[in-house]
């Protein structure tokens, strides 16, 4: 069965600093990988996705993520964090089953941005 690990429960960065959120996955085949963001009181918004091809994927809001098969990682990065980026970030892996795509989520990383 697949699993996703986000080792950092909380991260605090200063506004304007760079950000990297870690995600490691366990999956027996080529994974479909996603990053979602959840702002307080909101649902989940898709930031970016990886299916195949270029291992560096660009997303919305200036985020990018790099798929590294050798490290089973899909870390999320942003060169300069804005105060509005404070939210919870979830990494997820999709498995294709007879019932369609099913997502397994990591436990999330809560990002705090200091002004």
């Amino acid at each position, binding site marked *: 069965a697949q699993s996703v690990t986000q080792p950092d429960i909380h991260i605090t960065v200063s506004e304007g600093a760079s950000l990297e959120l870690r995600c490691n996955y366990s999956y027996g085949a080529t994974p*479909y990988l*996603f990053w*979602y963001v959840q702002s307080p*009181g*909101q*649902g*989940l*918004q*898709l930031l970016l*996705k990886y*299916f195949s091809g270029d291992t560096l994927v660009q997303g919305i809001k200036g985020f990018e993520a790099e798929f590294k098969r050798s490290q089973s990682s899909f870390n999320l990065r942003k060169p300069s964090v804005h105060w509005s980026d404070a939210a919870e970030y*979830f990494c997820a892996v*999709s498995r*294709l089953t007879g*019932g*369609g*795509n*099913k*997502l397994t*989520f*990591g*436990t*999330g990383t809560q990002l705090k941005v200091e002004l």
Partner: protein
Amino acid sequence: SAVISQKPSRDICQRGTSLTIQCQVDSQVTMMFWYRQQPGQSLTLIATANQGSEATYESGFVIDKFPISRPNLTFSTLTVSNMSPEDSSIYLCSVVTGSGGGQPQHFGDGTRLSIL
């Protein structure tokens, strides 16, 4: 991507009662799912809502507790039955709009449910 509306956005209920949550999408979708997010936790898949047939439940979730309907390709409901304080969670529906492997899921804003 599709616009997903969930109702109600939040509710406070008495234990022993039931609440039905609605998920409406502005376009036909191929897949609909229901998730639970307990306080401070990640998302757990409850079931896949199948159009015109019984939902497919994940381990640990049963139809008697979480009956689901999906009468057409744009609408689904989740009922939380005989509620207890342990059911206090955010319930989210998600949809897949494309076909083929790895299509992303898009989420509604969720229903925040508190049980007294």
